[in-house]
């Protein structure tokens, strides 16, 4: 009887150890999976933000009944590799960033005066815009190193412009209302990872 009890005890202990080990292993693997996804996101963000350069080239004020500004900026990838980016303009970024509408142009010829729309090509938002829930738009608020969903400040659908850079530096022109510019507006450059949009660069519009 003692021998049988000992064997039974050993079996039970072994089974228990196996169960506990499996539970721990599952916990570890779950954690590793989460960590892996986050690490992939982090490394992607780090890589993309490192190789994207955006710089303002010029700005003009367009006088009309509704005063606007046009900003010309260059976007380039420092490794000359392709990338798909999303553009969005947020105003009131210091307190409660909210998207604002804008118009996007590109140069119609090697030489173009951004004050003259005849030298520019309008990029239609119907073909390049994407609908995105603000829950999925991750921005970095002022004075923060952490991403936060835009829905904290603006809970609605937004439509960022999607642009594709084949690898060469490109010049784009955005036209935005003067009111937005005067209200601490920023051009926000986003990339898309797993259906979420992450801010990788900003350009103050002033």
């Amino acid at each position, binding site marked *: 009887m*003692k*021998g049988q009890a*000992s*064997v039974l005890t*050993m079996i039970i*202990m*072994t089974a228990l*150890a*196996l169960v*506990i*080990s*499996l539970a*721990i*292993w599952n*916990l*570890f*693997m779950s*954690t*590793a999976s989460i*960590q*892996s996804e986050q*690490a992939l996101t*982090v*490394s992607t963000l*780090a*890589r993309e*933000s*490192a*190789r994207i*350069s*955006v*710089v*303002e*080239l*010029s700005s*003009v004020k367009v006088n009309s009944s509704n005063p606007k500004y046009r900003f*010309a900026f*260059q976007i*380039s990838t*420092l490794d*000359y590799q392709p990338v798909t980016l999303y553009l969005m303009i947020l105003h009131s970024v210091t307190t409660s960033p909210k998207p604002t509408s804008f118009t996007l142009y590109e*140069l119609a010829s*090697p*030489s*173009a*005066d*951004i*004050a003259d729309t005849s030298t520019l090509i309008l990029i239609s938002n119907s073909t390049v815009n994407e609908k995105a829930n603000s829950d999925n738009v991750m921005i970095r608020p002022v004075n923060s190193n952490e991403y936060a969903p835009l829905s904290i400040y603006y809970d609605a659908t937004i439509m960022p412009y999607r642009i594709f850079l084949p*690898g*060469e*530096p490109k*010049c784009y022109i955005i036209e935005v209302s003067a009111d937005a510019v005067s209200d601490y507006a920023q051009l926000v450059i986003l990339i898309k990872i797993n259906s979420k949009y992450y801010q990788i660069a900003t350009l103050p519009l002033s």
Partner: protein
Amino acid sequence: MRVTRSKPRRRRGISTVIAGTIIILLIIVGVIPLLMLYLSTSQTVLNTYNTKSTYEELKELEDIEANVSDNTLTIANKGAVPVDISFITLSNSEDVCSIILSLYDYITRTVPDPVIDESNVMLNSLQKVVRIEQGGYIKLNITGLIQQGAEDVCSIVTARGNVIKVPKIEVAQKAQAIIITPVTIDATALTERTDITVNENEIQPATPDSPGIGMSRISPDGTSITALLRYFVAESADGSESLKIIGLNNDGSCNISFNNIYIGYSPEWSRNRRVPARYNIMITGYEPLNIKVSKDGANVIIYGDNTYIENTTDYYKIVLPQMPYRIKIIDYIPSSGNLVLYYDRDYNGSLDRLVNEDALGYWWLYSDQYVSKDKKVQKGYIELNGNASQIIVYLTAYDMGLNINESSYDPYFFSADVDGNGYPEFVFITEDEGCSITETTSNPEAELANDVGHGSNKLIDYTWSDDWSTKKFLVNLTGYTVNGADMAFVQVAIKLYFHDNLYDNPAHRGNLYSLTEEIYYNNRPVIGLYVVDAETGKIVSSREWQYQELDNYENTFPPSKSSVVLTATLPIPQSGIYYLAIGFLDPYSNSAIDYLTNWECSGEGKDDGDFIIAIEVIGLTYYARP
């Protein structure tokens, strides 16, 4: 019993070990991937960080310089890494930097090729950028852009995101002067200059066969229009100072009386100053002349007949009776080492002996006939005994028996460094025998003229000789052009000496009818500065100085002159290429025929007046457009 007791204990131990091993293995199986993932993630982040750092460092290391000059954009890579230029920005007509230009497209699509010069530059067709390697540069003609409405280059943009501002030349900076090296003019080399052009017909040697155009003079007896021409030319075969000039004095020298004389250093010697000193001398006289020039090693040309030349075995002996002459002696080296001039410098009746540097200058006698008996100036003369490279004697065509009434400016131009400052003067001289003054007993000042033996109520120099210009002589500074698109004004400064032979009494000036003064129209231009369209030759802007303005700078007798700087700021049209020209003329007696038929000097065209205009340096200052 011992055996049966010991077996279960051993089995329990084994199962524990097995269970422990399984647990440990499971833990290891779970932890190691997690650990590896952590390490991998860390490595990825580190690599990304390194990549980002590399990009940032490369961006920081970019160092390019850009500037625009004369519609040429120069971009130079001064940094340690290659630079890819993507765009440049330009300002529009409202001075707003709103024009974006793809540099690659501009270079590859523009016809003609806008690249003026380049070094270590590559056009990258894949990325559509212009790559400039370390130390490389590219120079681009941006005239086409400016013609399309661009005003200026604002900035250069690199693919890495650097925006380099192109220094904008502000109005105040653009207004900075560009001083061109002072321009000096040597009459003997005018036709050889590549930066100066003249009408060669107006500067050619005035020989009887081909006298040229530009100047005329009245005949000594006042009966016809004639010209001053080359009569005798002697020059050494090799340009050296091998001509021997001697005379009939006991020491072999000759004394040449003069009415005026100009002595200065040879321009070439003035620049180098190697001993012995060489002088250029110009003598205008009237008294009989005897001078001998050795034939040895000389090329001698005698124009016209040789009435006044005695041709001996070894010498040409020039023997002139009393007639107007002019002599140029080039590169004169006195045998004694001393250039000697006798001149009554103080006008006290006794001649001073002026040697070497003291003898340099412009000297006038106007002959003793013009001086009162109490202050009678003796005849001044120069003592010549030495060597020279060239001797030219001019006589009037009238005295040579020739019917020629116009010559080039050759007899009237002369170059010498008269003040010894290293800048030779370019001298235009029409003054000859005397000052223009009338004889009248009612004018106390005219006591100077009491001894005139040419009859009363006559303008004395009319009866001798008078010179005037038939064409304005233009010295075109075609080597110093200016683009009207860049420059708004040119300021010209001319340092010159001026002297005239018109008697200096403002009360009498213009009072020609009473025969107490010399000219009636004192507002005729004598010298001018002109901005000339390089394409059409049309004068588009000018400043001329009239006689009455220049008269303030001199005193006719006793002779004195001032070194003055005349300046003029001349506007330049907004487009086109222009150059500056300097014009001279002697505008008086240019209607001489009138007074030949109306000797009483009672109307327009009877004016007389001769001048010396000696230009030393010309400075040009350009003022850029804002």
